[in-house]
């Protein structure tokens, strides 16, 4: 399974850096004066290409905000964000929408699919919107891998929660984006269905060379990642490579304890 590892859509790998996305001195603040709340406080981060990165942190730590900013869903107060070599901070809505459509994939915690479209229509939606013909062979392989071949004509309401999330994963992969962002993609699933989806994400990194960034607060989910970033109070406070669930959990308890004593 090495032949299809590289993502070829942007033409060759020659000029490509090892960093898929990076944030430089990113600040995100809400309100002003007395009521000013800083969600991201001068964050610098590099997302390595072809890696599975998890972002963790307690509620209100800014992990979701960071992901939204990286994905071009939210604007930053100051600082720069690059997707590959493209600076996305300061892009107009039209360009940003195009960028999300062509270069980014999304998996949300819930409500990932349009109820009016069936599974395959949902999967090809980003390409349809762009007016691109999906690559049949690739599509077939993605569908095959997520194990949905028998359910392509089903509407989302006819699918289980796990199946719905798998459709969402397939959608994210089908357009061969440079990077996939997941916002607690297994948050609404039971542990078995969750494991299925996570296993699939892991495989897509290993076998397809996909870059994935996932926000989660579940140590088990984080253990599927290559690297875990810890956020607290809008800052990256720690990171961990090749984590196990127990290590992550320990680290979290540690933060919690520190949080309470400080």
């Amino acid at each position, binding site marked *: 399974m090495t032949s299809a590892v590289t993502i070829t859509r942007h033409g060759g790998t020659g000029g490509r850096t090892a960093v898929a996305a990076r944030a430089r001195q990113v600040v995100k603040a809400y309100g002003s004066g007395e009521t000013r709340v800083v969600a991201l406080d001068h964050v610098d981060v590099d997302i390595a290409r072809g890696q599975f990165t998890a972002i963790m942190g307690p509620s209100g730590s800014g992990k979701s905000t960071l992901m939204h900013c990286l994905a071009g869903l939210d604007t930053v107060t100051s600082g720069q964000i690059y997707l590959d070599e493209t600076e996305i901070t300061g892009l107009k809505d*039209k360009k940003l929408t195009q960028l999300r459509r062509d270069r980014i994939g999304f998996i949300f*915690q819930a409500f990932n699919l349009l109820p009016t479209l069936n599974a395959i229509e949902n999967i090809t*939606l980003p390409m349809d919107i762009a007016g691109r013909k999906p690559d049949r062979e690739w599509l077939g392989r993605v569908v095959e891998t997520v194990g949905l071949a028998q359910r392509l004509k089903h509407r989302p309401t006819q699918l289980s929660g796990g199946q719905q999330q798998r459709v969402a994963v397939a959608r994210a992969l089908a357009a061969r984006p440079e990077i996939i962002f997941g916002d607690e993609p297994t948050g609404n699933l039971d542990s078995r269905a969750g494991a299925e989806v996570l296993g699939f994400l892991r495989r897509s990194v290993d076998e397809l060379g996909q870059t994935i960034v996932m926000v989660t607060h579940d140590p088990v989910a984080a253990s599927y990642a290559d690297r875990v970033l810890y956020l607290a109070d809008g800052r990256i406070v720690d990171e961990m490579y090749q984590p196990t669930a127990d290590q992550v959990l320990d680290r979290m308890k540690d933060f919690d304890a520190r949080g309470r004593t400080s």
Partner: protein
Amino acid sequence: MSVMKTSMRNFFAHKGRMALSAIAVMLSVAFVTGTLVFTDTMGTTFDKLFAATSSDVTVSAAGGEPDEVSRTGRPDSLPASLVKEVAAVEGAKSAEGAVSSMDVTVVDRDNKNMGSSTGAPTIAGNWTKNDLRSMEITSGHAPRGPTQVMVDADTADKHGLKLGDELRTITVSGDITARIVGIASFKVTNPGAAVVFFDTATAQRGLLGATGRFTQVNVTAEAGVSDTRLKRNVSSALATLTAQTEQGAKGEQGAKGVQETAYKVRTQQETADANRSDVDEFMNVIKYGMLGFAGIAFLVGVFLIINTFSMLVAQRTREIGLMRAVGSSRGQVNRSVLVEATLLGVLGSLIGVGAGVGLAVGLMKLMSAVGMELSTRDLTVRWTTPAIGMLLGIVVTVLASYLPARRAGKVSPMAALRDAGTPADGKAGLVRGLVGLVLTGAGAFALYLAATADQAKQGSLILGVGIVLSLIGFVVIGPLLAGGVVRVLSAVLLRAFGPVGRMAERNALRNPRRTGATGAALMIGLALVACLSVVGSSMVTSATAELDKSVGADFIITAGNGGKPLNPATVKAVEGVEGLGHVTRMKETPAKVTAPDGTSESGQLLAAEATYAEDLRRETVSGDLAAAYGADAMSVGSEFAEKAGVKVGDTLTVAFEGGRTAKLRLAAITSDDTGLDKGAMYTNLTTVERHVPAERLPLDTALLAKADEGSKDQAYAALKTAVAKDPTVKVMDQTDYKQALQDQVGQLLNMVYGLLALAIVVAILGVVNTLALSVVERTREIGLMRAIGLSRRQLRRMIRLESVVIALFGALLGLGLGMGWGATAQRLLALEGLEVLDIPWPTIIGVFIGSAFVGLFAALVPAFRAGRMNVLNAIATE
């Protein structure tokens, strides 16, 4: 109490979502209130006018109302000697004779009509003391002598008349040419009548044809004598007088004396009431017509309100479930929705009542612009008007929200626990399909019966039933039809728009009940438009075909749109035109025709010269129509002949009104299968002239003329010149006549379309409402689509396309239904001569395409708002 509080909170939390429903309620209520205020104000204006113009007691001839155009060209009159007799009555302070006639046309030097263009009369009379009650001379002086005239200030203003200008007053006795010596202003609002005054002798000669006569005697009561008492005294004095005359007249004077002794004595109140009843007839047409359209708007508004509350209930399912879970009863939930509806009704109606008064004022200004003066000083808002407006608005709103409220009551407490997201309203069910099919089927059957009915009256009732049943049937079945129709429309229209079109189609289809109700609202208005345009267009086409077939005359000459009789001077002028083969005079004489078996019919006998048979070719069932114009002969229509069992050769008894009774031989029976002169009875002009005294003989209704071979154009021009001095006279050749007919129908249709616009506006609000609420409901979907790369432009297009499809769905149903109604009506009216079905495709297609634009327009704001939606808020998991 807590129910009230939650309702209030909900209502104000969702005030934006309620806004369009409130506007719909407001519009309908405003239309009702506006209509009532407007007509009441008109009533007040006329009341004031009539109170000011009537004297304490008025004596007039019993024959006709003084304020009516008479057939003979002269109003009924009284001998001048009566003034003295009445003045001597106990309790009478004074009496004076007055002349007043509406059988006049007043023109300026350029032969331009000074009369009102809105149907208000032109009145000529003598200047009396009684007129000082309602008018005052504001410049110049009262007229003296045959060459002086005084005119009312409104007419003078409108036409730029000033002292010294010449006015020509056209009467049956000839023209009165006089210079303006005075201008008098009304002290009350004069809605539009043009009034001219002469001195008494000139008025008598010119308007009544003789001095020594008056149209009425105005009696003023002495102080302390009531109008009623004075009336009693006058009546008894006149009765005594009549008895004396009868005795004295025995043997010598006969009929004439008897006629003159019948008087009408009225108090001021009675005169005003009699005048009012004429005006009321006209005002009631306006009032009930407009209220009818307000009713249609209400009906359309009901759909909007149902949709609003259905959507609010659906969106609030979890909330309602929670309330149920913590112990609210079904009734409480149900009531809380109804309370919200009541609040909406109260608010909408309250604004509507205010807006209605504004609407009435606007309408008055509009009427002023077209020549009907109404003053805001007379603005009349009766206490019942706001009461009716409020009641209607609230009751309709609450009734419309009843179904959604009941559905809210049925939400189970478990709903609170279920996953977020809005459940569909449910698929259109089997029961609905069956009920809809039964209703539509029954409607279609009734329409079929109406189309094949052989009696118009009975048929129109069935037609009405058919229309109502099929409409309700379509409304019920609409959600089911939505699926198929939307798919077909999308296949044709939306495929071109790729995935955006596909999503628009799916969105329109996902909630058939909602799409059905939204489309149905538009359907109602458009069905009426389609139906009326089919009937109107068939009317014109049928009449044109009939004209081509039956009319042999080249020209028809009438006065004042056919409502007024022709002046003898005009007849003479026409008869003098060169190049005419013949001119046929024609009058309508009121008469009662009795068959040998006693069957009788009162109506107009058409008396004409024999050439009328060539001018209007009528098919006969038996006999020869030309023979009916022979001496003492006549014809009847086939329906009457059948009813009375008469055949050619029988003798009919004809009692001419104001004349003698004649025995006429039935010479022909005309076929009633026609649109022209249906059921008419024809006889010869000379026969009528022999039986009716000259002064009671009606003037000619119309002249028909045929040009000599090859001189049609010259004759047409010559005719126009000949009648140029009287602007009310119209010369029409067949082309003009057809055009006039078409214009008349077109005008009527435009007016109806204008009034239907209200219903259509409410329907458009309904589309906006549905889209706006759908957009709110689909916030998360929209967020998701935007996140994965749907551009704002694509999103807006998607919503616009959905809107267009919904609008076209409504248009298709409405136009189809309306054309069905129209075609049925035409089949039924074929009995009345509406032989040809003509579907005005340009109008129908225009309306259909227009509906697409309506859809685009309705989507403007919802699409804009969806585009502006913040992606993050939209996908927030909260």
